[in-house]
């Protein structure tokens, strides 16, 4: 099939960016979305143009490298899907596809579609861990954890840190990302000892970095490729409140 691509090109963080259009023929429905971009890049290179820089690695939806706003939606039109899992079957012959980098002030563009998401690591660094030194751990089964709690912690822990929540939020809030980690560790007895300190520090860091406030809009939950629930934000708020009094 033949598609029309409108892609954000920006040579470097300092350079001014803009959309460039490409007509791409010979696209197959069997391609994944990123394979379509690979194909575009091979035609660009053969035509003496520079390929489009985009991030990707595992190509099976788990590393969180891939991003992209596709036709105005993070990770494209399919629900609970990362861009690398997206297939070209989602698009019609002749359609126009607009591809942009994540929209967030806190994730500046590095080149083309690659953005700098190191702000996420800074938030985690502020407290997204349990201070368990290697060697000090007790026997793993010494603390039973109710299955429903462990499962809920797991449901939060599967966050891949892609940044779709921030990119989709009109306020550019990182609450779902922060909530996923706070909630995971708050649900586990191992994480309780540092729970108050953790939530205060992570929220403070999130605010300091310039992420927006949560307006309970729910775009983050709708666009999260891992289906992380906004109820974790409620737990974050409870934890934060409890830590503040």
């Amino acid at each position, binding site marked *: 099939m033949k598609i029309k691509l409108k892609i954000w090109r920006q040579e470097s963080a300092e350079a001014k960016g803009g959309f460039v259009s490409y007509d791409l023929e010979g696209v197959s429905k069997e391609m994944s979305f*990123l*394979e379509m971009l690979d194909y575009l890049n091979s035609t660009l290179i053969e035509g003496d143009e520079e390929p489009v820089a985009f991030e990707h690695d595992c190509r099976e939806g788990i590393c969180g490298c891939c991003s992209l706003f596709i036709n105005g939606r993070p990770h494209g039109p399919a629900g609970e899907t990362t861009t690398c899992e997206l297939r070209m079957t989602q698009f019609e012959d002749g359609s126009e596809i607009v591809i942009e980098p994540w929209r967030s002030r806190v994730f500046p563009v590095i080149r083309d579609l690659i953005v700098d998401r190191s702000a996420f690591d800074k938030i985690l660094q502020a407290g997204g861990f349990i201070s368990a030194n290697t*060697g000090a751990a007790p026997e793993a089964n010494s603390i039973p954890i109710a299955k429903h709690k462990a499962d809920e912690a*797991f449901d939060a822990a599967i966050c891949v840190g892609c940044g779709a929540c921030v990119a989709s939020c009109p306020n550019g809030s990182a609450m779902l990302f922060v909530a996923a980690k706070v909630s995971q560790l708050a649900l586990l007895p191992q994480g309780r000892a540092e729970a108050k300190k953790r939530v205060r520090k992570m929220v403070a860091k999130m605010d300091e970095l310039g992420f927006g406030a949560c307006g309970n809009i729910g775009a983050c939950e709708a666009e999260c490729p891992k289906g992380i629930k906004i109820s974790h934000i409620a737990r974050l708020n409870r934890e934060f409140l409890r830590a503040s009094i």
Partner: protein
Amino acid sequence: MTMLDAKIPAGPLADKWSNHKNSIRLVNPANRTKLDIILVGTGLAGAAAASTLGELGYNVKAFCFQDTPRRAHSVAAQGGINAAKNYRNDGDSAFRLFHDLIKGGDYRAREANVHRMAEVSNQSIDQMVASGVPFAREYSGYLDNRSFGGVQVSRTFYAKGQTGQQCLLGAYSGLIRQLARGKVTMYPRRDMLEVVIVDGEARGIITRNLVTGEIERHSGHAVVLATGGYGTIYYLSTLAVGSNASAAWAAHRKGALFANPSFVQIHPTSLPQLNDYQAKLTLMSESLRNDGRIWVPKEKGDRRHPNSIPEEERDYYLERRYPAFGNLVPRDVASRAAKERCDAGYGVGDTGLSVYLDFGGAIEKQGKKAIEAKYGNLFEMYNKLAGINPYEEPMRIYPAGHYTMGGLWVDYNLMTTVPGLYAIGESNFSDHGANRLGASSLMQCAGDGYFILPVTIGDYLAERFRTPRISTDGAEFDAAEKEARDKLERIMAVGGKQTVTSFHKRLGRIMWDDCGMVRNEAGLQKALSSLSELKEEFWREVKVPGRLDQVNQELEKAVRVADFFELGQLMCRDALSRKESCGAHFREESQTPEGEAQRIDAEYSYVAAWEHKGEGSDHEFHKEPLKFENVEIKERSYK
């Protein structure tokens, strides 16, 4: 040729590690702060090592090519992590785990290392649970276990199909804690290009900053590589597309021997190739084989829909050939059996290159809900990628390049043949012999990173605290930087017409056809000559656009592919020199009348370790003889 000494401690197998820990040198806590350790690669092994070394007080400089350690390819391990906890009271123990691994590795692994890995496995689980890793639990609140990949006990801990992600994030959380304390400094978006050797010892690395293109120098008192495997040499593999061998190869060029390079595990349950544009093959966890049954039609070229092929016309070939283990035979056996059926014309799908993995019976017996609880996310993933709903019809699967048992040769302390240069996790060769058992990769990475390297490296560093901080101004750094820069400039200067990817695809095809699941003399010879032609063509025809001083993803790929040509040649030479079949290495010339792998212990019970002798020269072959004192060597039978 020399005989290599792995420096295995004396004493009974079960006491070796304790004795060794009791006798090696320690570094005084006050002196650890004077020591810098460079750590390349921050997957499970690297992140675990970084956090532990940081806690001990060393200054760690950690490097990765991703934007954050959270994304390292450990993240993709699905099925689980083994430990000899014996929570199921099914007769498990460190010795039994050791025994299974030695047998599974087809008697080509080093006893002492494997036993140590089994010994520390329990501590790794403790450590991870303490770090908040949400492993699956039973209703009692205690940890759940499952049976996994070719063993008869349930010793695998798991977090649905995302065990690797959860283990990595646990180790990463330890690493960032040390970042916050200032004991670890993180250098993301860096490719390591060279190791710097000063006075015969590893003292630094040269990296390329993947954002600015800057070539950088970093120094330390020791260098640890945790850079993973090289399965991407096949182009299509289950690995992340960025996984590469370049750091390990740079170490190899500087004197680190490369061991058993041809030992590559081909995973039996991957999605088959669907089209020519495909960039990778997605793994479907082998835990699926616990409930799924593998079959092909009994009739050649039967094109009926799988659901309309009656039970009696299906060939459950694994159950037929291996009644004792059935669908749970180890990976190498399952992969070859699938290839055998497809090559014989019984394969299914458009290409005839796939087999069915069927859950129909399991769903009927256990109910959809039970199957969903175990494999829900895997079924979803399969449905997304292949457009087939596995609840309603069988999955189609085919083997794919997956894990490299081969890697840098290391001694018992995990040190390579270059003093001060260590290799941990998949980047070394030490623990899996000729075939790795499922759920053992995470186990090795965690053990190496948390409990082994942080102890053994002390033995080397004990005297180095007197060495002042190493300057990056010396002649050795100048020379290494020049070497790195020259190589990059040489690639940029080719100015040919063909893309890097087109070369990688052709390279992958050569390796897959002749140095993949099945090898023979003629094929390997052919591959060697095709590789040298292709390599020559690469250096004449490759086209890398852009500049050195900017984000240049084509350049990153080109460096990796250039190294893969050389590694590919070494893999073929290694496969040629081992005229026996063992584990994943199947030489057609060495098989039993039933078509099973035929080991030749009298001649090949050794580790082959290859020494780089400079560009254009042949590698020199060295041997580490393997002694088996604690297991009885048997034919590896799963019948």
